[in-house]
C-alpha cells in the first residue's frame, strides 16, 4: 500500500463475541463503543469516511480467523478491534501480520500476545493477565493472604492466568498450595471444586477463570460458606459479573480493573453517555473492555490522522509515538512489544449497604501506576521488541 488512505475509506472491524459468555462484557457494547469513538471523531479522517463493521466470532478460533481473512481480503478492513477471548486473538495475529493490518485487542488477556507470539501490528490495549495477577496477587499477599489455591479454567487463558499469579504470589513471599483445573466450557456445578479448595486450607482462593465460570464458582463458594473462613480473589472480574452476582454474593471481592465508570468526571461523563445511548438496550454501564475499545479506536484514528495514511507501519509508528490521554488512560504508552501500558486500579466490591444504587459497585483501593501495573519490555519475551 502506498501513502494516503487506501481505497478512500478507513474501515474498522469489531470482531467479538456477540452471543456467547462474553457478549455482555464485550459484544454489542464493544461495537457501540467503537461507533461512539468514530462519531466523536467526526466520522471522517483526512477527509475520508470511517466505517465500522462487526461480526460474531462465537468464541471460535476458526470463525475468528475466517472472518478476519474475509474482511481483509474482501472489504479492505484496516483494523481489527476487540477480539475478546485469548484463543480468537491468537488466531487472527498471524493473519494481520501476514496481511499488514492492525489489531487493537481489548478483550483478550494472555501475555503471549505481546510476549513470545508478538508481532509488529498488534496492540494489546486494555489489560493482560500479568497486570491482573500482579494487581490482585501482590496486593492480596501484602495484606497477609500468603497461602493460595487456584480454581482454574482448563484452557489457555485460565492456565496462563494461574501461572502468572503463582509467580507474583511466590515473588511477594506467598506460597501456592495447589490448584484444580475444571473443563470449560461445560462445568456448571463448582461445589466439588469449592470443597477441594476448602480442604486445601489456603487463605486465598484465586479464581483463574472468567465470565459464567467466575459467577458460578463465586456463587458456589459463598453458598458452601467458603467465604466465612477463606477469601476469594477474582483474577478477572468485570463489572457485568458483579451485576449478575448481586452485591449480596459478591461483596468484599478483590479485583483489578483498567477502568471503572465512577473513577473521575471524565469517565463518569463518557460512561453516562454510553449507558444512555439508544443502542445500549440493556442500559448497562461500560465494562473495561468496552471502554478500552472506545479509547483504542480513538487512539488509532488520531494516529491515522497524524500519519495521513492508513498504512499499517506508519500508523503503528504514530500510535507508539503518541501518548494516550482520555477518560480511559492518562499518559498511556504503547511499547515496541505492542502492549499499552497505563494505570490500573485495585478495587473491592462494596457491601449492599455501602452501595448507593445500581452500578455503584466498586471501592477503588489504590491506583497502580503504569510502570508497576504492566511488565517491562525486557520482562516480555517479545523477539521484535528486544531487537529494537
Amino acid at each position, binding site marked *: 500500500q502506498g501513502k494516503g488512505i487506501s481505497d478512500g475509506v478507513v474501515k474498522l472491524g469489531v470482531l467479538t463475541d456477540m*452471543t*456467547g*459468555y*462474553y*457478549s*455482555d*462484557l464485550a*459484544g454489542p457494547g464493544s461495537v457501540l463503543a467503537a461507533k461512539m469513538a468514530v462519531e466523536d471523531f467526526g466520522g471522517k479522517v483526512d477527509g475520508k469516511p470511517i466505517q465500522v463493521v462487526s461480526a460474531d466470532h462465537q468464541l471460535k478460533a476458526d470463525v475468528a480467523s475466517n472472518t478476519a481473512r474475509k474482511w481483509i481480503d474482501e472489504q479492505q478492513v484496516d483494523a481489527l478491534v476487540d477480539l475478546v477471548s485469548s484463543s480468537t486473538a491468537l488466531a487472527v495475529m498471524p493473519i494481520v501480520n501476514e496481511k499488514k493490518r492492525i489489531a487493537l485487542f481489548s478483550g483478550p488477556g494472555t501475555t503471549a500476545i505481546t510476549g513470545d507470539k508478538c508481532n509488529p501490528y498488534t496492540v494489546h490495549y486494555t489489560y493482560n493477565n500479568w497486570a491482573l495477577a500482579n494487581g490482585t496477587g501482590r496486593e492480596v499477599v501484602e495484606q497477609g493472604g500468603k497461602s493460595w489455591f487456584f480454581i482454574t479454567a*482448563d484452557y489457555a487463558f485460565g492456565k496462563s492466568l494461574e501461572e502468572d499469579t503463582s509467580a507474583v504470589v511466590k515473588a511477594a513471599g506467598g506460597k501456592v498450595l495447589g490448584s*484444580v*483445573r*475444571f*473443563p470449560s*466450557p*461445560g*462445568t*456448571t*456445578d463448582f*461445589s*466439588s*471444586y469449592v*470443597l*477441594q479448595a*476448602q*480442604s486445601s486450607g489456603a487463605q486465598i482462593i484465586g479464581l483463574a477463570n472468567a*465470565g*459464567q465460570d467466575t*459467577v*458460578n464458582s463465586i*456463587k*458456589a463458594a459463598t*453458598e*458452601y*460458606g467458603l467465604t466465612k473462613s477463606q477469601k476469594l480473589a477474582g483474577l478477572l472480574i468485570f463489572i*457485568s*459479573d458483579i*451485576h*449478575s*452476582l*448481586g452485591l*449480596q*454474593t459478591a461483596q468484599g471481592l478483590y479485583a483489578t480493573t483498567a477502568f471503572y465508570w465512577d473513577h473521575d468526571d471524565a469517565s463518569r461523563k463518557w460512561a453516562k453517555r454510553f449507558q444512555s445511548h439508544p443502542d445500549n438496550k*440493556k442500559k*448497562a454501564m461500560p465494562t473495561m473492555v468496552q471502554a478500552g475499545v472506545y479509547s483504542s479506536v480513538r487512539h488509532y484514528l488520531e494516529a491515522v490522522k497524524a500519519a495521513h495514511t492508513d498504512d499499517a507501519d506508519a500508523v503503528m509508528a504514530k500510535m507508539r509515538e503518541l501518548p494516550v490521554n482520555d477518560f480511559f488512560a492518562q499518559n498511556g504508552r504503547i511499547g515496541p512489544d505492542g502492549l499499552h501500558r497505563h494505570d490500573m486500579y485495585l478495587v473491592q466490591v462494596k457491601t449492599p449497604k455501602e452501595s448507593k444504587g445500581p452500578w455503584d459497585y466498586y471501592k477503588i483501593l489504590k491506583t497502580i501506576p503504569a510502570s508497576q501495573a504492566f511488565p517491562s519490555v525486557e520482562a516480555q519475551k517479545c523477539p521484535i521488541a528486544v531487537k529494537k
Partner: protein
Amino acid sequence: MQALFGQLLLGLINGSFYALLSLGLSIIFGLLNVVNFAHGALYMSGAMVAWLLAQYLGIGYWPALLLAPAVVGLVGVVIERTMLRRLYQLDNLYGLLFTFGLTLVIEGLFHEQYGNSGNPYPVPEVLQGGVRLPFMYLPEYRAWVVVVAMIVCFGSWLVIERTKLGSYLRAGTENPRLVQAFGINVPLMFTITYGFGVALAAFAGVMAAPIYQVSPGMGSNLIMVVFAVVVIGGMGSILGSILTGVGLGVIEGLTRYFYPPASSVVIFVIMALVLLVRPAGLFGRQK
C-alpha cells in the same frame, strides 16, 4: 478420606438434580418417542421466568416454584398442539431436529432480551445457612434440592408405572392410530404428557436458579449430560433414569476429585460402554 465423603455427598446432590432433569426428558423420550432437545432451553426458561417474576412482579421463590412450571408447561402444550404432534409418526430424528431448532429460538430470544451475563437470584430466607457435617458444610438449600427432587421423581414414577396411563402411553407411541381405535383420546394424552414433562424441566430450572447463574446459556451445558443419563438408564424407563441420574452424579463427583479434566467426558464413556453391553440401557426393556 474426609474429603471423599464430601465428594460423595456432592455427587448425590448433583445426581438427584440430574434425576429431576432427566425425569422429564425420559417421560417425553420414552413415552412420546420424541428426543426433546429443547429440554435444556425449557429448563433455562423456568429459571428465567422465576427471575422475571421476581424482577418485575416481586413474586418470590415459593410461588415461582409453581408459577414458572405452569407458564412454561403451557408454552409446551402450545408447542405440542401446534407443531410437535405432526412429528410423532416419523423417525425421532425429526423430533430431535425440530426441538433443536426450538432451542435456538428460545435461547436466542432470551439472549436478545436479557443478555448472557446472567442475573442474581437469592436463596429463599428460610433455606439460607446450612449444617456443619463432620466432613463438610452442607447448605440447607442443597439438602432441600435432594429431598424435593426425590419426592417429585418417585411421585411421577408411581403415577405413570402404577396406573394404566403408563401402558396407554407406551402403546400409544407404538401405534397411536390403533390405540385411538380402541377409544383412547391419544392426542390429548400426548399433549398432557409433553406439557408435564416440560413443566418438570422448568421446575428443575427454578430449583437451580439460586445456585447457578441464571442466563440463557445455562441449559446448553446440561442437555447432553441429561441425554446420556436417560439413554444409560434405558429410554422410557423412568425408574432407570432416576437411579442412573443419581449414580452418574456420584461417579462424576468422584472424577472431579481424582481427575477433573475427565469429568466432562466420563459420562459419555460410561454411556458407550453400557450400550455395548446392554443394548437397551441398564433398565430399558428390549424391543
